[in-house]
């Protein structure tokens, strides 16, 4: 009994040391090993489960679930939908990302007033459902190839706006997304910074969010990630699910077409 207990503890300790030793040899390889170790048992899976329940749960004044929500592939089709977002939606005559589309569904199907949800902070309970839903919906595209259309004029427009935003310098630091993500081979502290205008760089970001962040113990949606990028640049924080945030997503998603979705991801 006790011997077995000891063995389990030793195995766990050995795994920790193995990661540590590699980090000394080569920092990047060490971080990669750490990320790989985290892949197994990603707590994002817990949010995937709760998101799936929220999807099926009746709510709002119309007492309806989101099961008939059209994410672009037809009402209720979740499988593969995230790999093709953002996209143009006829009914709203807008290009929408996952979270703005979920808000549309909450309004139309459930009769929910989404204004307070849009206003609420990311750590507030109002946003928690959307974060869990984005974990769930994105998990249903895991292993699929990004296939974002830029064929519709509005989709093209959104992508182009995203590119302009990416290079747009503003704020008290005169910063742009491109300040950190506009050159190959850059890093901040120990984090490699993907070069977003390239297919490979864009995919590094786009295909791994939403993600669980180990350092904060929080599940982050793509909107949350983008909002925090703007905050770090000392921009005014964008309104949740506004066109600015969708445009940046369109730019990243459009650039990573063909890459394989790994959502939900896990980050340090």
């Amino acid at each position, binding site marked *: *009994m006790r011997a*077995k*207990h000891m*063995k*389990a503890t030793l*195995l*766990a300790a050995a795994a920790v040391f193995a990661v540590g030793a590699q980090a000394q040899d080569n920092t990047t390889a060490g971080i990669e090993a750490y990320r790989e170790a985290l892949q*197994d*048992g*990603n*707590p994002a*899976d*817990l949010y995937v*489960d*709760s998101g799936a329940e929220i999807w099926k749960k009746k709510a709002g004044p119309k007492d309806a679930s989101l099961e008939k929500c059209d994410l672009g592939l037809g009402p209720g089709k979740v499988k593969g939908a995230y790999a093709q977002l953002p996209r143009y939606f006829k009914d709203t005559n807008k290009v929408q990302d996952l979270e703005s589309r979920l808000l549309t569904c909450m309004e139309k199907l459930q009769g929910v007033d989404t204004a307070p949800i849009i206003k609420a902070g990311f750590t507030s309970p109002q946003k928690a459902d959307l974060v869990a839903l984005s974990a769930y919906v994105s998990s249903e595209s895991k292993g699929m190839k990004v296939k974002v259309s830029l064929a519709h004029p509005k989709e093209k427009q959104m992508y182009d706006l995203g590119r302009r935003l990416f290079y747009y310098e503003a704020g008290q630091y005169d910063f742009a997304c491109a300040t950190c993500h506009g050159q190959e081979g850059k890093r901040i502290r120990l984090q490699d910074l993907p070069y977003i205008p390239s297919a490979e760089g864009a995919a590094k970001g786009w295909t791994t969010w939403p993600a*669980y962040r*180990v350092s904060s*113990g929080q599940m982050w949606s793509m909107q949350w990630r983008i909002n925090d990028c703007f905050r770090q640049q000392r921009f005014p924080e964008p309104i949740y699910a506004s066109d600015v945030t969708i445009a940046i997503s369109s730019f990243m998603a459009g650039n990573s077409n063909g890459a394989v979705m790994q959502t939900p991801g896990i980050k340090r």
Partner: protein
Amino acid sequence: MANPMKIRAASKDGVTEIKILMNHEMETGQRKDSSGAVIPAWYINEVKVELAGKSVMTAEWGPSVSKNPYLAFKVKGGKAGDKVVCTWTDNKGDKRTDEAAVS
């Protein structure tokens, strides 16, 4: 009411690897909220794992274990179809038990 755990277990060459992902805040009691009040400690302090009705691991935990803890370990024995049962108890006395079959 605590949220369910995710348990996976696979047996190979007479060794069973058990992987458990628990759903828990694991609040240390060291943090303060936005109004400056201490957030009370709330963490799992005991984990028990059974394989095919036999206890194979018990652990005493404290506040240093991360939020949503992940526990993986290997034990000798076990075969496909055996039941893995995990129970945790936290410092508030809350309990959660989940089970899964070895594949």
